[in-house]
C-alpha cells in the first residue's frame, strides 16, 4: 500500500486561489487521486515544454478527489519562492500542467487506535489534514500543533479545528496564537493528549526538534522532510540525507522514494547536509572527489 506506482499525466488547472500568503491549486489529474495516501507528493513540470526550467517541483498533496465531475483531482498548497512557483501562481484555469504522482513513501497509519499529535509548520500542514481524517477513521485521537512565521503563513487552522480534539497555534511574530515556535508548546500537548505517535511536516529544524521531544515523551515520530529535488522519481540522487537503517547502518538515502516520510529517530538530523564519516561508503579521510 505504501508504494503505488506513479503515473505521468497531462493535467489541467481547475482552480487557483489565494490562501493567506499561499496559493492553493486544484489540478485535474486522472489516475493519481485513486492511489494517493496522506504524505504522498506530486512533481510538477514548470515553465512549459520549451522552458529553461528543466527540473520538476515537488509539492505535498493537500487533498484529492477521485469522484469529481471531471475525474480525479489533486490539490496542492504552495508558497512562491522562485521562478517555478511564480510560474505556477500565474496559471489560468484550464491551463495544461504535467503532473507525476503519487510519489514517495507516505505516512504509516497505526493498526490500533492511538493518540496522535500532528505538527505542521507553514504549508507543512497541507498533508496533515487528510492524514487526520485517515487517523480518525481508525479511531485515533488527533490533536494539532500548528506553527508559522506569521498569521498569513499559518495554513489550515480552521479545518484542523473541525477534525481534531484540540489545536495549539504558535507564530513567530505573535500575530495569532502563542508567540514562539511549535517546539515551545509541543511538550505540553504530548503530555495532555497522552500521545503515542507524532506526525510532522515542516522545515528541517522543526522536524529535528519534534523528533527529540517525541523521543523524550516515549512517542514515535514520523516526519515528512523537504530536501532539494531534481527529478522526484529516484533517478538523480540529489535528494539524499543520512538515515539509519534497520541494520543500524547509516546510508545516504533518497528522500523522494524512501521518504519523504521517515521515522524521526532514524534520521540523523544533526548531520543533514553532510556525509557522516560512519555512513556506508563515506570517503576515507581526505574527502571524496
Amino acid at each position, binding site marked *: 500500500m505504501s508504494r503505488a506506482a506513479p503515473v505521468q499525466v497531462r493535467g489541467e488547472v481547475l482552480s487557483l486561489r489565494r490562501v493567506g500568503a499561499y496559493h492553493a491549486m486544484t489540478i485535474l489529474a486522472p489516475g493519481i487521486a485513486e492511489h494517493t495516501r496522506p504524505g504522498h507528493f506530486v512533481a510538477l513540470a514548470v515553465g512549459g515544454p520549451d522552458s529553461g526550467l*528543466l527540473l520538476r517541483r515537488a509539492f505535498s498533496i493537500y487533498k484529492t478527489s477521485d469522484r469529481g465531475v471531471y475525474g480525479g483531482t489533486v490539490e496542492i498548497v504552495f508558497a512562491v519562492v522562485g521562478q517555478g512557483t511564480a510560474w505556477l501562481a500565474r496559471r489560468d484555469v484550464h491551463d495544461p500542467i504535467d503532473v507525476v504522482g503519487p510519489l514517495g513513501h507516505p505516512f504509516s497509519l497505526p493498526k490500533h487506535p492511538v493518540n496522535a499529535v500532528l505538527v505542521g509548520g507553514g504549508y507543512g500542514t497541507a498533508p496533515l489534514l487528510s492524514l487526520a481524517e485517515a487517523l480518525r477513521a481508525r479511531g485515533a485521537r488527533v490533536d494539532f500543533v500548528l506553527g508559522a512565521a506569521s498569521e498569513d503563513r499559518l495554513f489550515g487552522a480552521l479545518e484542523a479545528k473541525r477534525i481534531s480534539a484540540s489545536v495549539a497555534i504558535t507564530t513567530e511574530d505573535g500575530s495569532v496564537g502563542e508567540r514562539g515556535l511549535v517546539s515551545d508548546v509541543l511538550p505540553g500537548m504530548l503530555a495532555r493528549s497522552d500521545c503515542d505517535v507524532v506526525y510532522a511536516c515542516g522545515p528541517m529544524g522543526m522536524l529535528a526538534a519534534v523528533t527529540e521531544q517525541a523521543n523524550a515523551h516515549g512517542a514515535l515520530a514520523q516526519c515528512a522532510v523537504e530536501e532539494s529535488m531534481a527529478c522526484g522519481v529516484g533517478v538523480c540522487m540529489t535528494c539524499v540525507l543520512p538515515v539509519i537503517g534497520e541494520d543500524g547502518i547509516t546510508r545516504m538515502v533518497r528522500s523522494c522514494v524512501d521518504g519523504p516520510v521517515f521515522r524521526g529517530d532514524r534520521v540523523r538530523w544533526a548531520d543533514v547536509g553532510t556525509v557522516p564519516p560512519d555512513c556506508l561508503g563515506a570517503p576515507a579521510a581526505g574527502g571524496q572527489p
Partner: protein
Amino acid sequence: MDLATTLGPLRLPAPVLTASGCAAAGRELAQFFDIAELGAVVTKSIMMAPRAGRATPRMAETPSGMLNSIGLQGPGVEEFLGHDLPWLAERGVRTVVSIAGGSVEEFALLTRRLRGAPGMVALEVNISCPNVADRGLVFACRAGSAAEVIAAVRREAPRDLPVLAKLSPDVTDIVEIAQAVVEAGANGLSMINTLLGMVIDVDRAAPVLAGVTGGLSGPAIRPVAVRCIWQVHAAMPHVPILGMGGVRSGRDALELVLAGASAVAVGTATFGDPSAPLRVQDELRHELAVRGFASLADAVGLAHRRGARVSGAVGAHVAVERDESGRDGAPDTRDEAR
C-alpha cells in the same frame, strides 16, 4: 523508418539510450515506459565499493541546465551484480554498464568482475573521474591517463564486448584524447560528459553546492556537445559515437546525429520528463521521416557532407559534397520535405 544502429560491434535495434547517472538502473523509469524499447539503458557509473557520494546541496538549477555534484554515489559492484543487473536482464533490457574508478587498477578489477554479466551488451568507461594517484586530476583530461584506463579495460574485457570511452569536454583538444583512447582499444566514444561549473548564492555570498563545483548538463551544453562530436567525427569518421549533452527532443537528437553520432543518450531531460528517453526516440523517428530519410544511418554525420547554409537558403542552395567513401548522404526529396 529503420532506426537500427551500430556502435562498432554493438548492434542496437533503436538509437536512443539513457545517459549514465540519469536513469539509475532502469527500475524507476520502467514505471513510466517500456525501457526495453530503448536502444539500451546505460546504468549509473558503478565502482568497486559502495560509495556515499558528496554532501548536499548536490544540485543547482541554472539557465537551461543544472549543476550536479552527486560524487558517484552507488551501491558498489557486488550489489549491482546481485540486484540491479539481474532485474534488467530478466526484462530483456539491453544494458550498457558504466564503470568508474579512482585508479587504473579499479577499472581493471571492475571489468574482470563484470565479465559475462547477464544482459550487459557493452561497457561504458567513465574516465571523467578523479585519478587518486594524480592529485585527483580526472583521467579524461590527459591522453596518457585516458588511454591507460582504456587499455586496462580492454585487456580484461572479453574480446567481443564493446568498450565505449566516455569523454570529457573540459579538455584543450578533444580529438587528441579521442585518438588516444581509440588506439588503446575503445570501440566507440560516448560524448560528452558534463562541463565543470559553479554557482554562487549572492545573498549568502557562498557557493550553492556543498561540493563547491559541479557538472553542468542540460540544453545549455548542447552546442558544446555538437561541436565535440563534430570535431571528433571529422577527424575519425569511422569511429562510432554515442552522442549526449542537452538532448530534450527528437530534433535535438537529430542535431547530434547530423554532427556524427550513431546513437544518442538522454540525460538531464529525464528529470523534467520521466518519459523523455522514449519520447525522444519516437520524435527522432518522426524528424527523420519528415525529412525524407529512409534510415537513421543515412543521417549520421550528414552535416559534414553539407556546406554552411548560404543566405538562409535551403535545398538547392546547400552544397552537397561527396565524402571519401563516395556516399552523398541523402536523396534530394529530403530538401523538398524541409
